[in-house]
């Protein structure tokens, strides 16, 4: 029913072609967004005529299969972390994560709640952090341009890091998700 | 009207009357035993008609005897005998079946015997 194989370790690619590819990747960021509470609301103005993310080639995709970027916005609970992990792993390589807002990054005002994560980095490799409670769309666009710059420079390697250190991440994830029923890797 | 023709006509009228009464009874009575009676009446009428069918004026009964010179057609009389015998058998069977059927249905009313329908 589920494919249980572990992913192969991605190889290192360099050269002119890779640069062109990275240019293309940077200029065509397709986003799948996860959001709770205010995070989900503040992301939407990006598509409107005022901010218009499409001019950067950024587009919303409704399915992780076709996306490149996972935006995590709003606090992450243990229960929702499971879903986010699955969405992230279902995105095809190369893939990036933007963490949006204080609650996402370090629990924010919910730091002492019984089910909100405090440190996202232990569970998923974040490429760009956008601070704020809640960050304005301008800040998000700033984050995107940072991500684009990182991709162009070949520094946005979070997904490789994740695959290489899958055991470490899994250990952390399984520590807080007590009823772990995901497959070894969510294809 | 001679005695013979009076007899002839009274035979016809009685026979026809019996048959008609019998049929009327069969169609209108509800009690199974009365229907049996009506049948018997009609049977008698029919037997009379059978006798009539062999009736010839001024003849005597078909009992072969030296004194008899001319007799009526003997055949119908023989037939009537058969028919009476059969009639008795039928009537007896009818009454038996009727009585048992009325026991089964709890009533001698023939209208109650409508289980077999459609």
């Amino acid at each position, binding site marked *: 029913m589920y494919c249980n194989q572990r992913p192969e370790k*991605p190889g290192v*690619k360099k050269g002119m072609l890779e640069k*062109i*590819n990275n240019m*293309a*990747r940077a*200029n*065509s960021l*397709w986003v799948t967004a996860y959001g709770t509470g205010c995070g989900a609301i503040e992301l939407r103005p990006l598509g*409107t*005529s005022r901010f*218009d993310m*499409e*001019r*950067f*080639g950024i587009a*919303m*995709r*409704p*399915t992780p*299969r*076709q996306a*490149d970027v996972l935006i995590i916005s709003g606090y992450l609970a243990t229960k929702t972390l499971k879903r986010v992990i699955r969405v992230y792993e279902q995105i*095809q*390589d*190369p893939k990036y994560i933007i963490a949006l807002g204080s609650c996402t990054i370090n629990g924010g005002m919910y730091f002492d709640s019984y089910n909100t994560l405090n440190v996202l980095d232990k569970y998923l490799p974040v490429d760009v952090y956008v601070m704020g409670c809640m960050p304005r769309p301008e800040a998000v666009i700033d984050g995107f341009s940072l991500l684009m710059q990182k991709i162009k420079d070949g520094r946005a390697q979070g997904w490789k890091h994740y695959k290489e250190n899958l055991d470490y991440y899994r250990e952390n994830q399984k520590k807080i998700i007590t009823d772990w029923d995901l497959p070894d890797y969510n*294809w | 009207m001679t005695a013979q023709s009076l007899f002839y006509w009274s035979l016809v009228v009685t026979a026809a009357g019996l048959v008609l009464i019998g049929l009327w009874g069969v169609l209108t009575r509800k009690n199974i035993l009365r229907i049996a009676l009506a049948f018997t009446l009609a049977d008698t009428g029919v037997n009379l008609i059978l006798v009539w069918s062999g009736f010839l004026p001024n003849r005597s009964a078909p009992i072969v005897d030296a004194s008899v010179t001319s007799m009526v057609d003997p055949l119908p009389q023989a037939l009537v005998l058969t028919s009476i015998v059969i009639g008795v058998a039928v009537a007896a069977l009818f009454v038996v079946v009727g009585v048992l059927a009325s026991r089964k249905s709890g009533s001698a009313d023939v209208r109650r015997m409508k289980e077999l329908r459609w």
Partner: protein
Amino acid sequence: MGNIVSIVLTILGALSWGLLLGGISRTVTARIHGRMGPRVTQNFIDMWKLFKKTSSIHHGGMFWMAPMFRITGAICVLLMVPLVIGNSITYNMSFAGDIFLVIYIMFFGCLGMALGAGNSGHPYAVIAVSRGLAQMSSYELSFSIAVVAIAVGLKTFRIEGIVEAQQAGILSWNIFRFPFASAGALIAFLPMQMAYPFGIVLAPQEIPIGPPTEYSSRFLSFMFSGRALFGTAKLILFVSLLFGGASNWISLLVKTFLLYMYPVVVSSVFPRFRTEQSIRFLWFVPTSLALVDLIRVML
């Protein structure tokens, strides 16, 4: 040999033209919305990115083959239509069949895509297929009536013959000779391009992107190029059927561009029909329009 070169060039040209038109349409839509919109070349970038993603998944044989089906169907339609009239080397394969063949070979790609969607095992993909097929069966009705009216009116099924019959000036274009049939066909053109108000199939809001929900990476790039090719092929077909074909390359580009803008403009100002609404609309409005010309032709 020249034929094969022409075929290869046709495919590449149609692909680029289709992607470019797609980019233009995104810009135009954005401008209508009051946005700046992406670059005109955005579709090329997207294609390249998708093509160069480093992993992908598949769900089985039909899932694998669906993009190939799609692209094959699109190219077949493209090759069955003569591009530039008078330039026989651009007729490609159009000698092998007539307009009926084109109508039916259009289904080839659709069926492939539908099968791929089915094999992906994703319920939303199949819901979209169900909607798409229902809608397709409806617009094909008016489209085929229009085509039959035109073909019978011109006494030929060969697309070449249909185009040649329209070469005597603008007024001999079928859109003027068969105005009602053309109107029917042009309304059917909207759902063919999945333009709003008939965009229920892709419906990104509730069924993520429709049939290709599960497609990713290189599969998706094949799907997109198939769509671009198919779009171009349909444009050329419609130009040949209704707008007098093209006597040179410029007029081909101009006519297809203008025709392409028509669904784009309509699409960006309309909300969306529900499936049964669009089916009913397509059954009645364009069909009755096209029937007017059919009856005219019969009498």
